[in-house]
């Protein structure tokens, strides 16, 4: 049984929870990126021991499911916060628990190694000649990085970053398991209250898809804008033209048969 009116009624509460989902996604993504930059630097540190340690850290963070992070964090919030408050001689009350902040931290933490990998692969994708040219023209290391290398890395990393972003967006739905009322949590609540599970979850799915689509297009747009110099003729070309019929065929079809014309 699919109750259509309940299906449509489910939309409003879930839409109201969208900002929470977006806050979770954007802040944890930014944090993960910052952490990723630091981890990438540590993983390429000239000191072998530090490099080794942080490669293990990276693998450790990658190996743990986000849900486990969320559970571990949520059960340790109170004790951590009490200790933290004690440092500043304050008393912590568990009435306004910073669950959201901890969830953001958990999400960010599990994405830090992926961001670091993204940065490292972008760095490695830059041809040696770019470094050499900068060096030969007497650029300092930092001048070369900021004027030549990082702008190119950014372009290379955009598609990857977009993937991580939308994956994080979907991963935020897990935070409903630690009582955060984002889209998924709200949908589940609404469903339980009205006993209309399929309706609420379907509405939720559609809304996730909508948000996903918006960001997917945004990143495609950025990719096209930013990366136009990497391909010849890319200023006018779009990728999906590859899947259309070649233009030549249209021309030949439209051309009148010379024999018939006679």
């Amino acid at each position: 049984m699919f109750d259509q009116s309940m299906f449509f009624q489910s939309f409003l509460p879930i839409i109201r929870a969208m900002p929470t989902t977006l806050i979770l996604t954007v802040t944890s993504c930014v944090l993960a990126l910052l952490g990723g930059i630091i981890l990438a630097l540590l993983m390429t540190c000239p000191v072998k021991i530090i490099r080794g340690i942080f490669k293990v850290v990276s693998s450790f963070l990658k190996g743990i499911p986000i849900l486990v992070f969320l559970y571990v964090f949520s059960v340790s919030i109170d004790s951590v916060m009490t200790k933290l408050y004690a440092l500043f001689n304050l008393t912590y009350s568990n009435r306004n628990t910073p669950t959201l902040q901890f969830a953001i931290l958990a999400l960010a933490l599990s994405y830090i190694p992926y961001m670091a990998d993204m940065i490292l692969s972008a760095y490695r994708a830059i041809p040696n000649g770019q470094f050499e040219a900068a060096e030969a023209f007497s650029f300092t290391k930092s001048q070369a990085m900021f004027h030549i290398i990082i702008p190119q890395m950014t372009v290379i990393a955009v598609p990857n970053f977009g993937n991580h972003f939308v994956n994080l967006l979907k991963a935020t739905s897990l935070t409903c398991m630690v009582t955060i009322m984002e889209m998924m949590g709200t949908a589940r609540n609404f469903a339980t209250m009205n006993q209309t599970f399929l309706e609420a979850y379907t509405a939720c799915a559609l809304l996730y898809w909508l948000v996903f689509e918006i960001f997917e297009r945004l990143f495609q747009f950025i990719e096209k804008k930013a990366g136009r110099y990497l391909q010849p003729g890319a200023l006018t070309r779009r990728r999906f033209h590859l899947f259309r019929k070649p233009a030549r065929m249209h021309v030949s079809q439209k051309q009148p048969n010379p024999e018939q014309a006679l």
Partner: protein
Amino acid sequence: MADKILEISNVYKRFGDNNVLNGVNISVEKGEVIVILGPSGSGKTTMLRTINFLDPADAGEISIDGMTVKCQEKNKKKVRALRQKTAMVFQQYNLFRNRTAIENVMEGLTVVKKVPKAEAKKIAEAALAQVGLSDKAALYPAQLSGGQQQRVSIARALVMKPEVILFDEPTSALDPELVGEVLKCIRDVAKTGITMIIVTHEIAFAKEAATRVIFMDGGVVVENGTPDEVINHPKTERAQVFLERINHPQAV
């Protein structure tokens, strides 16, 4: 007498077990166009790259325009100061991919020499006009042909007002059709009196444009003289064999 602008003395370089340079001595006077010939593996490119410390040599001294730096020098400031007296044109052009043609030419001026943008733009426009690419100023390297990219990279080297321009096989990565335009461009630049060192396999170009030809083999200078002396009347057997092969490839 012309002034001595570049002096390479006793340069040694090894990669692992491979001794690439075994005591190279070259001295160059202002305004000379020097073409370096030699079989592959003879150390031509390495020699060029030791001059601007892209591959610092293991021993020896480089002196440009009165400034002498030991090859083992680790002080980055000194190396950079010496480097600024040179500019390099690479085999693979190595234009900055994220910059348009004109931005490529401006980049060294604005970033390294701290020239104001407006002024750098004027200088860059003039340089692009000199290599005949004024109409391509707004295009990215990926939108230019190999020959055009190489000309932009020559313009990029010119605007730095170096004492000497180093060309590392500037035409080796080009289609045969495009070699001509780049060689013409180099020839035109040579006429302006700037000192150049060119590693190339273009014998005809060497004959016509060089003021001096150096033949290298086994990491040392084997022959050093006018184009006519070295190319038409080589004294050493090694140079004779090499030039014979290049001049008459069918004889191989």
